[in-house]
């Protein structure tokens, strides 16, 4: 299985004469991407690549716009985690206006963010991943979707919907609307949380905590019951990057950058993110339109890393809420910590974070600062602003330069999915090696690739920076670009691959 040709799988040694299979679109992933495989006549895999087209149209679009528009404008990037962009841009603009947030402003924003984490993690686990996890990766494709889940596990499906809805209500109250809210502005927020609004949210938080705990239990049990698969499926060690609080705690809203190598050695810690470019650089590869960020100290070949729930939960020193911290300890202790590198460990880690988000929402709702009236601050105007936040999918970097007329003249965004670009490629190569190599392709086998990608919960709509969706194509070509067969996948249901 590990002859020279299949070792790395990024680039086939002799692509001539190999058969090309494209999985397009990668379904149940937010946005669209494409995976191509090069196979020889014996179905041995020679090359595996995940392609995401990154337009960076947004960076161009925002040029010339006034800086205070950015936190609202950036939400057009993504309908799934608009709040993350809203907050990352606001944090950058806090720097532009020289603000130090008031306690009320910071807490309202945090509440908004944890609402977002809750709704996004619930959406991912229940809607996008539970069909694979509960029915099996190569189960009947007609049932392997949220409709199938609703039929087989109605209670669970309902919980997923209500968890998500609660998160959206938190967003509506703090941002003004569920999508395209305006709550966070340069230097603070435009509204507090009134005591009526607080009471409205408090009414259901007990139920939300219980359900978050139950979801975590499901994620944990799935792992325990399928230990062999979960521990090995797309498992690889990777360097990690995430924000941590000054005391090393998990903090999804603010902190310094921490990077560790795959052996757990700290590369940098509590690094001031306003100079992120000193430690992170973006590489370009000829076959992909999406950039490949890497840790400068390790170089472009070795320096790729993983962001997101799995990195955050394993690399923080503790979680500052009791239930989630207990869950974290159990996760780390489980099977000697093997789960920490497991691609499917993402799901467990994600549910730990969802519980943490529910605990944080509960804490914040009991904090009287939410009803404060000191909402905005400002100080000395700056020309450059960097905002970094731990979005549901991982570290999100917003970077702007603003001229003396208040116009944005430069913008650079590094979104979570871009950070994970190489790691996702690595995961699918691992899976291709484990499950596909030498076997006749079936829909179920191809779905294994998608399961690995979905574990990262990539948001291709963010990653492409496109305004609006991309057109879809489905194709299966040979190495000369000749169409051999068509792989169709309509609404998650059909996939015919004969190859």
């Amino acid at each position, binding site marked *: 299985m590990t002859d020279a040709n299949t070792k790395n799988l990024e680039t086939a040694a002799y692509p001539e004469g190999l058969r090309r299979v494209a999985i397009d679109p990668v379904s149940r992933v937010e946005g669209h991407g494409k995976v191509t495989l090069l196979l020889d006549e014996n179905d041995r895999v020679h090359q595996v690549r995940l392609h995401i087209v990154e337009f960076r149209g947004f960076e161009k679009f925002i040029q010339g716009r006034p800086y205070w528009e950015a936190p609202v404008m950036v939400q057009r990037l993504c309908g799934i985690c608009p709040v993350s962009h809203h907050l990352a841009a606001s944090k950058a603009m806090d720097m532009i206006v020289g603000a130090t947030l008031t306690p009320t402003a910071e807490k309202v924003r945090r509440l908004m963010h944890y609402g977002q984490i809750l709704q996004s993690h619930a959406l991912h686990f229940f809607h996008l991943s539970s069909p694979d996890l509960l029915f099996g990766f190569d189960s009947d494709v007609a049932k392997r979707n949220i409709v199938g889940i609703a039929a087989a596990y109605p209670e669970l499906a309902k919980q997923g919907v209500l968890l998500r809805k609660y998160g959206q209500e938190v967003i509506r109250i703090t941002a*003004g609307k569920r999508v395209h809210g305006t709550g966070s*502005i340069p230097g603070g927020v435009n509204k507090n949380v009134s005591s009526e609004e607080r009471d409205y949210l408090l009414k259901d938080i007990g139920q939300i905590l219980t359900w978050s705990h139950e979801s975590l239990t499901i994620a944990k049990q799935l792992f325990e019951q399928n230990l062999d698969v979960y521990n090995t499926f797309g498992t690889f060690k990777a360097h990690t990057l995430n924000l941590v609080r000054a005391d090393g705690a998990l903090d999804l809203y603010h902190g310094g950058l921490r990077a560790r190598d795959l052996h757990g050695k700290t590369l940098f810690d509590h690094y001031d993110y306003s100079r992120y470019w000193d430690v992170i650089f973006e590489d370009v590869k000829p076959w992909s339109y999406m950039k490949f960020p890497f840790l400068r100290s390790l170089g472009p070949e070795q320096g790729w890393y993983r962001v997101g729930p799995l990195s955050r939960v394993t690399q923080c020193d503790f979680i500052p809420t009791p239930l989630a911290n207990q869950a974290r300890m159990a996760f780390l202790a489980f099977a000697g910590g093997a789960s920490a590198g497991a691609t499917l460990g993402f799901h467990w880690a994600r549910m730990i974070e969802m519980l943490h988000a529910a605990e944080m929402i509960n804490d914040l709702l009991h904090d009287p600062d939410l009803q404060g009236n000191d909402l905005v601050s400002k100080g000395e105007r700056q020309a450059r602003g960097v905002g970094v936040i731990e979005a549901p999918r991982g570290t999100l970097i917003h970077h702007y330069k603003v001229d003396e007329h*208040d116009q944005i003249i430069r913008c650079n965004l590094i979104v979570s999915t871009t950070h994970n670009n190489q790691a996702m490629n690595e995961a699918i190569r691992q899976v291709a090696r484990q499950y596909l190599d030498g076997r006749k392709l079936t829909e179920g086998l191809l779905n294994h690739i998608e399961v690995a990608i979905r574990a990262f919960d990539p948001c291709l709509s963010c990653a492409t920076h496109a305004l609006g969706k991309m057109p879809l194509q489905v194709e299966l070509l040979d190495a000369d670009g000749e169409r051999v067969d068509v792989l169709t996948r309509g609404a998650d249901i059909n996939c015919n691959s004969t190859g």
Partner: protein
Amino acid sequence: MSEMTFTLDGENVPFEPGQTVMQAALAAGHYVPHLCYHPEFKPHGSCKLCTVKINGRTAASCTMPAEAGLQVESNIEELNALRRTLVQMLFAEGNHFCPSCEKSGNCNLQALGYDLEVHTAGFRHLYPDRPVDASHPDILLDFNRCVLCELCVRASSEVDGKNIFALSGRGINKHLIVNSKSGLLVDTDIALTDKAMQVCPVGAILRKRVGFSQPIGERRYDQRPISAQALDDAPRQADASGNCAACEGTP
């Protein structure tokens, strides 16, 4: 003297000599959609949203003098469909991205769109390339959203006595210009307290750094539609300090 009246959608509307159909209708509590009309300025008659049928013929109600016995139709599907089309054309002609526009919720064009139930784009957007003028330290001029109503032109010349704005070009090339050598706002004597700063019905003339400081729910058209508010006062923007004589008592 017996009261002079005309009928509007079947109801008697009294008027005084010299009033237009629009003025009499609003004064009597009847809403007729409008965008370029403003009670403090001479009617301009350009947007045509106020088009009504007078004795069977279409006319702009904001410029049409009221006469006794006229039969005016306004709130009929035929005219509302035309008004929807006009609003769609205004949206398609400029760059109006309501979700990320700071005037959203306070914008008359958007409010008219909601009130007239404009649910679709209708036309392919032209996406014109119109750079903003951010040269002035306190005022932003975003040509992308200008609907060429000339309210700022009228306010600046008639009230402020400054003549800062003008329209130039014809047809689809018509656009707003700034009367200064450089063509930039910074080289005019515009002030935040000018009337011209208060009248723009859309988000084209903006005080800088205000942005989204007003939360959703508290904006002008969040609670009551433009058709209700236009009866309290003519649609306009509050001045820099948030005051507006005609807005007294309205949210």
